[in-house]
């Protein structure tokens, strides 16, 4: 069996006496569309923080393309191919939209390149995501949906093999959700694995090939969207008894 793109083994994370994640294991295949859901406080954000390196887990391992990245810093993991977007957009507000993308293009890349080349690649990503006409606008003054798009675009600019999208669609309208989803599908078509964390259920169900459900720091279900929807444990976790 080919090794999975991402292999999280028995990962635990504590904050003082509070256990945020309790020996959770999951894996994502190459180019897979993976959904991670669960009620608020279930540990989804903690999980992706441990995967991306923003937090260090106390036990368990994170393997990426077979390599143990458990103790690596976030920027090192980004260089290996893990990228993430943030739930609350964090643009580099002193820079234009284009310049925002040039940062990961420069720093996450495996080799140095000329500025012109980076700008070309940045424009290409902006075209893909639908922000090309705002390339030279100040990133601090964008609309909500454009900021979400910028988050994704910036994560894409790191040329990842695995992209983690953290609640990119929260609070967006129906058509806006479709826009974002569309971009994620396009990205996935190029072979990039995507972990989607969402509360917008229709998006997760449409997008994911496989879903893992967390509740109170433990994995309670895993399977295809259909299986998850019909799983009574999942219903209980979200809605109570």
């Amino acid at each position, binding site marked *: 069996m080919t090794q999975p793109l991402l292999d999280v083994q028995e990962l635990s994370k504590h904050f003082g006496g509070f256990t945020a994640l309790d020996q959770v294991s999951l894996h994502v295949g190459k180019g897979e569309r993976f959904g991670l859901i669960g009620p608020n406080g279930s540990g989804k954000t903690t999980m992706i923080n441990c995967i*991306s390196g*923003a937090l260090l887990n106390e036990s368990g391992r994170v393997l990426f393309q077979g390599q143990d990245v458990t103790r690596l*810093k*976030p*920027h*090192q993991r*980004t*260089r290996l191919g893990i*990228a*993430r977007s*943030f739930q609350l957009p*964090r*643009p*580099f*507000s*002193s*820079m234009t939209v284009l*310049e925002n993308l*040039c*940062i*990961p293009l*420069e*720093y*996450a*890349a495996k080799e140095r390149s000329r500025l012109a080349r980076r700008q070309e690649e940045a424009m290409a990503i902006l075209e893909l995501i639908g922000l090309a006409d705002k390339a030279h606008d100040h990133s601090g003054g964008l609309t909500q949906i454009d900021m979400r798009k910028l988050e994704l675009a*910036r994560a894409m*600019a*790191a040329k990842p093999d695995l992209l983690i999208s953290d609640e990119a669609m929260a609070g967006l309208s129906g058509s806006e959700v479709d826009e974002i989803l569309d971009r994620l599908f396009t990205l996935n078509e190029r072979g990039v694995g995507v972990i989607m964390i969402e509360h917008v259920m229709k998006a997760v169900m449409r997008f994911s090939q496989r879903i893992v459900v967390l509740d109170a720091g433990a994995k309670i279900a895993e399977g295809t969207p259909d299986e998850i929807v019909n799983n009574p444990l999942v219903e209980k976790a979200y809605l109570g008894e």
Partner: protein
Amino acid sequence: MRIAPFWPLAAATFVIGVAATFYFNEYYFVAGYLVLQGLIMATAWNILGGFTGYVNFGSAGFFAMGAYTSVVLYTAINPPLFVVIPAAAVVCGLLGLGAGYLTLRLRGVYFAIATLAMAIVLETLMVNWEYVGGAIGAFIITEDVPFFASYNAYLFVLMLALAIGSVALARYLNFSRIGRGLAAIRDDEVAAECAGVPTLRLKLISTTVMGAMMGVAGALYPYFVTFVEPVSAFSLIVAVNAIAMPMIGGTSTWVGPVIGALLLGSVQEWTKVNISSELNLLIVGVLLVGFVALAPQGIVGLAQKFAAWTREQREKRRGDDSATA
């Protein structure tokens, strides 16, 4: 933001500066020395403060350690100045590296307080170190140099060269790969780290360069003032100017500290001899508060806003003209 060709302008400034020492009164070079000292300190501070977004309150510590490096070398072997200056850069660069390593894991306010604490620790160490004179202080005897009109003119020219070098370095950092990384850290450190920017490494580079540059600013101080003691070497005005000059000039590029230093430095020198020295701190304080409240992007920011406004006006007029045509 690029101004006219940098190197020709810098070379011309240097040549004019040297020539001026033969025509003008020595007093202007004594005042000029202090303005240039402020310029180097401001440029250095801005590398960590403006470029990277970490506010350092302990600038006097690096400055004074540069001065004390000179004192130690003078007391031990009295070497020529071209040995003293790099020595101070190395000592204070290492100090910056060490301080960065200890404090950069702290964020925002905590980092700023840690830098202040560091300066106080260094001052206490110097007060208690007999070799450099402790609380009593140390004397430096200077000798005449050939070619120059006076020793102060010589120090002024040296400082001019060092200032140009510092500004050139800051300018290089501003527009380099490192500079872009620092800007990302300043804007959002977490996002930068996740975008592949090695934040700790870049921050340490920032503190090391800042430390080295401040050490260089302090290296010639003992030769200028001929008497070094801890209270005035670690003085508050050095630390406050290092912050005020970039904030008034503008922190986002290398130009701001230069403008801020030339302006604020000159005002201070004029005030010292026309009104009173104590007024200096008051002036700096008032200007700093004023700019932070009303023009946080500094003079450079105001200039940029003005340029944008005139551009708008021109376009509007063009629009009106074409409408009436």
